[in-house]
């Protein structure tokens, strides 16, 4: 179990966190955070996490603000966004700059996310 890929998922909604863990924990070691701040703490404590998937719209710190902060401390980590919003300029720009690796839309597509996580661990 120890050598499974570690994934941190950040979402302010409890149901989303639950469902993500239920569906992906067979494949990956899933870490959960309910906010950007909590996400930063978990990253700090678990240097093995190389992939983070975050919601965009959250109270306090939104997904992009979290990524901006986190990548200063953990530049080696790959960050992606999973949101109910259609892709918009801020995210598109971040993708073009390589700050964000993937944009996933809600409702999530399991195969797409699974494939992307494996891809990010490889690259």
């Amino acid at each position: 179990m120890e050598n499974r890929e570690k994934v941190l998922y950040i979402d302010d909604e409890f149901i989303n966190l639950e469902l993500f863990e239920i569906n992906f924990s067979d494949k990956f070691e899933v870490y959960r955070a309910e906010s950007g701040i909590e996400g930063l703490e978990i990253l700090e404590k678990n240097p093995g996490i190389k992939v983070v998937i975050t919601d965009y719209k959250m109270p306090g710190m939104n997904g992009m603000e979290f990524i901006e902060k986190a990548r200063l401390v953990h530049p080696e980590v790959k960050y992606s966004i999973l949101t109910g919003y259609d892709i918009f300029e801020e995210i598109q720009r971040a993708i073009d700059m390589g700050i964000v690796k993937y944009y996933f839309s809600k409702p999530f597509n399991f195969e797409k996310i699974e494939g992307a996580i494996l891809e990010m661990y490889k690259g």
Partner: protein
Amino acid sequence: MEKSTNKEEVRKLNAVLQITKSIIATLNYEEVLQLISDGMSELLDIETAAIYLLEKDDNLYLGATTPALPPDFPDSLRIAHITDHPNILSASVTKQAVVIEDFKMAELSPAERQVAEMRNLKSLLFLPFVHDEMTLGVLILGTCNEPKVYSQEDIDFGQTIANQLAIAIENTRLHADIIHHKEHLEQLVQEKTEDLDDALKELQLLNQELQLKNRELEKTLQYLKETEAQLIQSEKMASLGVLTAGVAHEINNPLNYIMGASLGLENYFKKHKSPDNGKLQTLLNALRVGIDNASKIVKSLNQFSREAKDDIEECDLNLILDNCILMLGNQLKNHAVLHKNYGNLQAIVKGNSGKIHQVFLNIILNASQAVEDGGNIHLNLYIQDNYYVVEVSDDGAGINKENLSKIADPFFTTKAPGMGTGLGLYIAYSIVSEHKGKIVINSEEGAGTQVNVYLPNS
């Protein structure tokens, strides 16, 4: 003696006739005065004669003399003042003849004396021309070389003829006045006509200017209307975009729950071996299809109202048309029969996807509103020359000729108030024109409408 008197009478009569005849033949004022002067001189057998006319301000004007003055005789020398000529004044005031039989014996004013001496006059007869109790002038007859005694008969006769001639003088004077007035009037008319012409030209110029201004104003108004329409449209789309994005997020989130839950259930049943796997698959599929459909509608709404900064996205016409149909689902369902024929064409145009969505949404919505329940709408996609053509035709109410010409005007609508903004087709035309395409509409009232949208295929 008897005979010579007769002869004399005949001579006088002839002279009077001659004057009258000559005067009748002319209406020239100076000529008439000259004729009178010459005629009276002959009639009364006196060598010299002069006619002074009474003018304004007690001035005298020398109208004619016998023998006649040279034609270039200066006007300034013709003018005298009546107070310098007391005998003329007397004749004119009393309207009676004045006789000076011998100039040497008479009291004369310096001016009178000067004239008499210049002409070597001996005796003088002043006959006023009286007409209608008014003295028009005075005829002065004078003998040279020797004095003359005038019989009362001669004087009376002379005065009678003078009064008759006064009528002629007055008539020619009036005539001259009339001519003068006529000329003045003609000149006045001429001047006024020229003024009018000038005014007319100015008016025409002003009119032209006004028309030009008018056309400019019309253009400005049209421009304002269009700008207003575009503003309304972009405001509408901007608020719709914000609203759609918000709603999309709020729908996508619960869809995400359902998706996660169905996936979790599927895995759960896989692990725990369900007794009726077939029924379970149907139920799970229903969940997936439901999520899928809801998600597609949200996506198409997003695409429709998204505010894209650049206009060079690759727009798939198949996808856009299907999105529009999806968005109009409720409007079309149980109302019109939709016949799609995209001809297996991959039609990609470069442009703004959201805006192209708006074009077809408007056109298909119009078709749907034009048909009765059970009416047909055909959606055909094909290539013609360098264009992709999307043909939207219906067998609905059609559009009459008058409205057809106004159909692309901003704010033109035949729909009930509140049912249409009159912007739909105007916006469609603007967007298609931005994409270097064109819209062609054919319609027949009662038969239906065909809207062809041409978009460049490169």
